[in-house]
């Protein structure tokens, strides 16, 4: 999160430069710039649980009317702090072996490359506020997830005869069965979604932007997290939008 602060400070100073240079920039039909922000992902099952994230990207806007514009963005975002941790305890009672296998699955973060197209509305030329409504396509580029298995096992190889028990042993041990990286098969790589956002002009060429985004597709495919099969990306965002041109 330290880096997010630095980026915000940098973008603040940089954003004040070229954008405040000329009064004509506001009249341009084409505009482009950078955007940075922080995210707070919201758990589907518990809205009070949030996870941090950050995003950065480019945006291009085309003014269609004094009050309307279209904006296209290309954004890379990391959503961390997923509260998904599932421990499965599996007991097996076999004829010669008792097994207690602890399987721990964790998901800590997702990274998306997304593009969104938004319609921007401004009440008046003098108003610092804009309202936007957009659709987006996101591609999952990376995920931080893991799976670990530990087993407690009691195994018996005793030989029984009419008069004795012998020729084998009963042993108990804890075994580390292994770790594995979670494959892409566990996730839907593409996501469609919608967003609503509001910007407030702080100064010329620099806007504060906040919004809500909701993915439409389930993130998980497999049963890695059985209770989160219907989880969809949802987050609040807050950041700066800097106009460079």
């Amino acid at each position: 999160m330290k880096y997010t602060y630095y980026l915000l400070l940098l973008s603040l100073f940089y954003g004040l430069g070229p954008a405040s240079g000329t009064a004509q920039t506001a009249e341009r039909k084409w505009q482009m710039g950078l955007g940075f922000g922080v995210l707070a992902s919201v758990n589907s099952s518990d809205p009070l649980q949030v996870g941090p994230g950050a995003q950065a990207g480019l945006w291009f806007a085309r003014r269609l009317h004094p009050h309307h514009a279209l904006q296209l963005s290309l954004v890379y975002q990391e959503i961390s702090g997923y509260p998904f941790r599932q421990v499965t305890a599996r007991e097996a009672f076999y004829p010669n072996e008792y097994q207690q296998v602890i399987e721990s699955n964790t998901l800590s973060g997702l990274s998306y490359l997304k593009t969104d197209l938004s319609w921007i509305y401004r009440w008046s030329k003098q108003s610092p506020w804009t309202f936007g409504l957009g659709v987006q396509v996101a591609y999952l580029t990376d995920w931080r997830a893991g799976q670990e298995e530990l087993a407690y096992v009691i195994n018996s190889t005793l030989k029984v005869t009419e008069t004795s028990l012998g020729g084998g042993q009963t042993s108990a041990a804890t075994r580390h069965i292994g770790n594995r990286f979670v494959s892409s098969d566990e996730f839907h790589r593409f996501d469609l979604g919608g967003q609503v956002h509001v910007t407030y002009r702080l100064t010329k060429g620099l806007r504060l932007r906040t919004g809500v985004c909701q993915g439409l597709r389930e993130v998980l495919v497999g049963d890695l997290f059985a209770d989160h099969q219907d989880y969809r990306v949802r987050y609040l965002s807050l950041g700066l939008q800097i106009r460079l041109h």
Partner: protein
Amino acid sequence: MKTYLHCLFLLLLCSACHPTDELELLVEQDLTPLFVSGQIKGPDEAAFSDFRIDFSTIDALTQTSSWHGNVSEGELGSTYLFRHFDTSLPFISSDFGLQFWSATLPSDRDWTPEELDAFFSIGTQFDFGQGPGKVEISLHLPLGGPYQRELSRPSFLADPQGSLEIVSVSDYEYQLLLGGAVPRSFGKLIQARFSGQIGLYDQEADYWDGDPNFFQTDEVVELRDCELVFYLEYGRD
């Protein structure tokens, strides 16, 4: 307005930095379907009562049960002896057993899958008692305790009545986690039905300390409409 937005920004940032952890715990069980059930009537009881012993229901970490079967040389020749061990029981670990004899199969090696298929083929019937063609069923009585030191058996009776019939045979295998180089045990689940009599063991009357060759009783425990599923290991690979 700017102050308000600044506060909102900080609030969002702070909340984002402290995600709450959530732990999902799921428990699954895989039980081997080994059991014996039926109706039982002790020598002093007026009516039959239902009973069932599951051979894989103990869930304490240090108390587990296991099912063993081995070929060995017995008093009456080559024998296949099965025992279920329940480590939660006091002073005796086996609560159920089966024993078969063969006049033709060897005792110095495991019987082959083909030999076992023929020996436990569907429809084969074993009379209660000891020796080739017979079956000795051992049961820890009284059920639920207080337990006797030894298991009760048909051969404690002078002329035990009853028989066991093989009803079905199905493949069964499981993965071993402590098997080392032999991670799989494979074999058959044998389903059998039996009814008959066993002699009730009485440790106070046992001068010979449980030796089945010497202990005799006329106290009969009746078993009726019993069903048994046991595991016959063919090998490990």
